């Protein structure tokens, strides 16, 4: 039972001052084992805050990140699943499933987490699953101003992943979930 927090595109301080208070009250240290962040934090203070939630932090570089040392892509293995991480501005057209699927095959992962569009999405295709946690602060994106703050928490339990989607809609936190199982044929 491993809890993995996936979030990104916070754009603090340029486009948003901070995470929504309701999200912050839920994100307490000690519960989450890993954090994967798609990028665009943008400053070190946000990095430190995320580090305080969980020591195991993985970040990829977004185009506005001030720390240039984050990698472009990252892969990690958690339990039975291989996860891939990339900000997504590198993949054109932005948010296009087929292009992301190409990246997923390149990285050879079961679950690919990308951002940049600031819209929550969860797709599946033959190669695996693509998850976009959206923007945790609800910052405006390069495409639209209409953004709901959202992030994703994955509960990896053996061959099964339960993806909990947390969205802030009209000031209330709404939680949904997506159940997902890995089969042997997923990877050649």
């Amino acid at each position: 039972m491993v809890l993995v927090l996936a979030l990104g595109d916070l754009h603090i301080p340029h486009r948003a001052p901070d995470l929504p208070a309701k999200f912050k009250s839920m994100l307490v240290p000690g519960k989450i084992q890993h954090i994967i962040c798609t990028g665009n934090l943008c400053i070190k203070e946000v990095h430190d805050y995320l580090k305080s939630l969980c020591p195991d932090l993985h970040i990829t570089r977004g185009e506005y990140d001030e720390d240039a040392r984050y990698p472009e892509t990252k892969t990690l293995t958690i339990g039975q699943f291989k996860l891939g991480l990339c900000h997504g501005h590198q993949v054109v057209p932005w948010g296009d499933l087929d292009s992301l699927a190409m990246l997923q095959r390149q990285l050879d992962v079961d679950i690919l987490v990308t951002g940049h569009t600031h819209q929550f999405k969860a797709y599946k295709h033959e190669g695996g699953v693509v998850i976009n946690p959206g923007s945790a602060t609800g910052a405006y994106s390069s495409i639209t101003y209409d953004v709901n703050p959202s992030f994703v928490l994955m509960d990896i339990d053996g061959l099964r992943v339960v993806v909990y989607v947390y969205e802030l809609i009209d000031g209330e936190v709404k939680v949904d979930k997506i159940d997902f199982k890995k089969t042997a044929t997923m990877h050649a």
Partner: protein
Amino acid sequence: MADGATPRRKSVPDWLNNPIWSAPPPSPRHSSPPRTAPSPPQPPPSPVLPPQPPRDPTPIPPPNARRDGDASDDEDDEGKGAGAPSRSHLVAEFKVTLDRKVVDLAELRRLACQGVPDAAGIRPIVWKLLLGYLPTDRALWPYELEKKRSQYCAFQDELLVNPSEVTRRMEEMSVSKREEHNAEGTGVLPRAEIVRDEHPLSLGKTSVWNQYFQESEIVEQIDRDVKRTHPEMQFFNGDSSDSLSNQESLKRILTIFAKLNPGIRYVQGMNEVLAPLYYVFKNDPDQSHAALAEPDAFFCFVELLSGFRDNFCKQLDNSVVGIRSTIATLSQLLRRHDEELWRHLEVVTKVNPQFYAFRWITLLLTQEFKFRDCLSLWDTLLGDPEGPQATLLRICCAMLILVRRRLLAGDFTANLKLLQNYPPTNIDHLLHIANKLRGPLPF
């Protein structure tokens, strides 16, 4: 051995200077103390032991019948059923008592106070009977064991499950059954409603996840303590898979106890009280019992702790039933039996009994003696008809009296050091002294 050296001792009667009152040196072959024990205390010293009940000789057998001091083993040999020749008659006596259709508990208690032999798996059964886990009627044993063991399985199933599992079960029970999603096909993954606000970051009081995270602190504490239990013993702390599984068993028992008892939860030290029980049951030569040592140990632990619960409850510390009051009773007991020592300890050197007796009482003396000695001590503790609490106090008092010479000669630091690192003693000797201290507890 400075007899007339200290001026304080001019009024000490001769019998008190007898070597019986001092702890014999820890030499394994030193068998004289138990033998010479009967003769000196026979002229009853009336000023110090007023309520000398005439029934005193009868409950205890003459010390010659006690088993030899294998209590002073230097290395830790677990599971060695060393049957010294003088114990074979004891084994036979126990077998006779245990083989009856309905076990006579009074008779068993009397035998247990003599000391349970290590051989032939007698101790596990005796302890289970003394703690009330097994009924006296032998015919009911299979039924009772089955019932208790399946109850434990139910506890395990219910309480030791992680929240992912729990939410999965809740889903399976809920009406809206969705299909499994696997990697075939393409498209957006449909979102589903969560059941009853159950998500990992939930802060709700009734949330399974929230409770899990709150209890994880206790679980971590238990984990740390179990790893520290008896580090010198292979059984608890070796590298083998056996000792790891023993540790896991201990952890499970303590976790289930903590979850079932929200009032007292887990307190540091409970692991030490559990360790001898689990050890004895796990080393039962009867494999069918040894394999199920965990549930047996759990229920016996509950039973044993029920008498001592109040010692672990912080709120009761200052109450009539709490640990402070128990320590005060011990103090009064010492005063009654040995006023001079009491005065020296509490008034002159100001050694507050809480400094040493706290650990003696709450951990049932598991930390004061070697593990094997502890098992022998517990035979009497569990077997004495007066009950574990009263017996424990008598034994503590006897421990103090046994080292009185050193205590009377020491100051605060020396006495505290001595009492917190109690010197190795012959257990039979100690229990013999404790037995002589019978009488109504002072209040």
